[in-house]
């Protein structure tokens, strides 16, 4: 019962902050709501007894990446009103299209993936998984999911090299 209340409360917070991120006019405020959103997601992870994931979520997203966003926003957005893009209507239709696409994706997962009854996370509280979060994730990453893990790190490396080349004219 308590878990259900906490889940719906945190989910409502996540959705609320997400709406505020896109609806706020001030860009710095939008970034701050994004931080709150990430923190609420971390709370959701804690509720699922994924403490490691929660802490990493705070460290990497809320504490690392968004700080860089904030940097960019603060330096770019000095007292200039948001420029009007070429055609607001076209942008609107693009948004509707993308939204419909995401909705269709979710519906497809529901229909073909099936909701099923996944193992109730709340009963895992005292299980091996809850106690040895870090060890278990490490084992999985370096055995079953080794290739996706390495691919992801390659992707990050490529992105980093790209950013350095873009930023530095002469190497």
């Amino acid at each position, binding site marked *: 019962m308590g878990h259900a209340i906490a889940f719906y409360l945190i989910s409502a917070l996540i959705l609320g902050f997400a709406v505020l991120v896109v609806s706020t006019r*001030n860009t*710095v*405020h939008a970034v*701050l709501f994004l*931080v709150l959103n990430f923190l609420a997601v971390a709370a959701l992870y804690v509720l699922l007894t994924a*403490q*490691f994931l929660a*802490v*990493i979520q*705070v*460290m990497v997203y*809320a*504490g*690392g990446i968004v*700080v*860089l966003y*904030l*940097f960019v926003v*603060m*330096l770019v957005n000095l007292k200039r009103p948001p420029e009007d893009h070429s055609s607001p209507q076209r942008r609107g239709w693009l948004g509707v299209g993308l939204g419909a696409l995401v909705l269709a994706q979710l519906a497809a997962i529901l229909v073909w993936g099936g909701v099923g009854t996944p193992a109730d996370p709340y009963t895992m509280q005292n299980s091996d998984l809850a*106690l*040895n*979060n*870090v060890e278990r994730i490490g084992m999985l990453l370096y055995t079953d999911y080794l290739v996706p893990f390495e691919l992801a790190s390659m992707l990050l490396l490529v992105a980093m090299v790209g950013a350095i080349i873009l930023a530095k004219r002469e190497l």
Partner: protein
Amino acid sequence: MIDTYLIPLIKILFVLNATLIAVTYMVLLERKVIAWVQVRLGPMRVGPYGILQPIADAVKLILKEDITPARADKWVFTAAPIIVMVPALITFAVIPFGGTVNLFGREMPLYITDINVGLLYIVSVASIGVYGIILGGWASNSKFPLLASLRASAQLISYEVAVTMTLVSLIITAGSLSMVKIVEAQLTSGLWFIFVQPVAFVLFFIGGLAETNRAPFDMAEAEQELTGGFHTEYSGMRFALFFLAEYANMIVVSSVATTLFLGGWLRPFPNLEALSFLGFVPGWMWFLLKTFVFLYIFLWVRATLPRYRYDQLMRLGWKVLIPIAIANVVVTGIVKVLL
């Protein structure tokens, strides 16, 4: 009921209050120590040897006029000091002040909680504190605070990388992320980790100085260049929050360093029988003593060393500390596998 709610609540209240008192007295201690280094007396008027000075300071700061600059962003301006202070305080939730003691016929561990990702929790909470500094400078709507906050945040992000890499090698040595388990690992190995990981210790301490914005890395508040730094526009209690958060962070770094490198609540050479007479000093006393040594070094360094130039600071962070930290991780890993 008592075990799940009442006792943790009492512990939290106790730790919070003890921390805040320690923070206010750190301010006095800093003034005194720097005064002694400079052959002055320091505060002497309020109470014997100025011992009541923190109370006078607090009264002064609370009674001062609280000014918000006219074109400041009110919400963010108000939130920034809070964002700095809260992470500094909630870190104490996972710091083990001592082992388990018998109190009123009840086994009582001297820490609020022991989570299995304790060390990562501290690192991630500390990374949230950066926002307070960035936002405080931005919301003031004034150029010097903005410049200072940009400097401070660039510095914090750079040194965060170095400190986190350093901690990785320590985690490999200890084999756990839980603060209590790390101390227990030092008990089983019989050596404080400062002897096992001396390089990591030096890196952590330099990084800790930079992370707390202390001299010689107090770039964010370089008075001569930036008229006081990101909190120039703050006054009264809000300024005090920024100020106290810096000292709270110093205590956090010192207690983390004590736990990780100096064996937390353990006595020196915990497995050596010849030194077992030291057992009459309780564990929490050892912890406080070691933390105090660190805090004293913080003050000592500030009184002694001149400030780094900004580009030197960034060069030190990225070109010296981070490569050494990564090399240390690699060497630690190889040694751990070979042994």
